């Protein structure tokens, strides 16, 4: 019939499954549609790696804050206004000339949402999850990072309870930068540990 074309495209099977879940749970008043929208808005628009970058920049410029951050990350991060789901038990691990930290979740995709937002696709891949522990140097090489042999690579496996954030090394030639300018240099990948923070002058990683 000609008017078949007037009707709507049926969504994919997976989209229909989600619609079924949502409508049944809303109907039973187990979830509220406005609350669901607010969650999506928060994660799409309000949180992301800029939050973590501010934490890192503060730690670089304020040694007292940095000491608090390494001693009790959850509280120190909350001082900057970041906390909540998947950030309740934070641990910050500090990179140093002879230590490079790498974060993974081998079981699924645990990740510090309040400071980094939602994880990138590669973080959730089976390849990254399985190889980060077995062959961290191989994984880092794929990200273009080759720490010298005398640098210890520490791999931190996240759990449903504990989430890790890497405090990268402050790059050279940044003494003149403000905290806000420093935050601009800090990338998501450097806080997962698959990158370092590049110096603004040379572009070379620290």
């Amino acid at each position, binding site marked *: 019939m000609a008017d078949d074309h007037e009707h709507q495209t049926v969504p994919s099977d997976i989209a229909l499954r989600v619609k079924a879940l949502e*409508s049944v749970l809303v109907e039973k008043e187990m979830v509220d549609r406005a609350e669901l929208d607010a969650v999506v808005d928060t994660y799409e628009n309000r949180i992301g790696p800029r939050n973590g970058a501010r934490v890192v920049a503060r730690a670089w410029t304020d040694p007292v804050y940095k000491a608090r951050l390494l001693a009790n990350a959850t509280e120190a991060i909350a001082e900057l206004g970041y906390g909540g789901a998947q950030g309740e038990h934070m641990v910050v691990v500090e990179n140093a000339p002879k230590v490079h930290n790498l974060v993974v979740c081998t079981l699924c995709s645990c990740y510090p949402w309040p400071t980094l937002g939602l994880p990138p696709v590669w973080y959730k891949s089976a390849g990254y999850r399985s190889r980060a522990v077995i062959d961290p140097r191989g994984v880092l090489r794929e990200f273009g990072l080759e720490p010298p042999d005398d640098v210890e690579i520490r791999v931190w496996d996240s759990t449903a309870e504990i989430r890790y954030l890497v405090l990268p090394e402050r790059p050279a030639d940044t003494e003149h930068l403000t905290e806000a300018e420093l935050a601009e240099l800090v990338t998501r990948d450097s806080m997962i540990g698959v990158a370092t923070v590049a110096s603004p002058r040379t572009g070379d990683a620290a």
Partner: protein
Amino acid sequence: MFAEPWQAQAFALAVTLSGQGHFTWKEWAGALAGELTAAEARGESDDGSRYYHHWVAALERLVTEKGLSDAPVLEERKAAWADAYRHTPHGKPVVLGRPD
């Protein structure tokens, strides 16, 4: 961040249900890890692109295990939505014509 709207909806459902105490986040992580492991055991290539498919499967599993709904209800509701799309004229909002 979310490739398609259903991914955002599924994400929000898990976060909200857990926030309201219907399951702990530890239970959630266990369910999701179970789906990921099962997919690997089936030999599915997992480059992360099907992550939210596994997320939805974990959500369905926990929702039924916790008695929030059951599989036949969800299956029936899914069919009702498909039907509603097929019978709603283009440009009109799709609503379920449930007779209850």
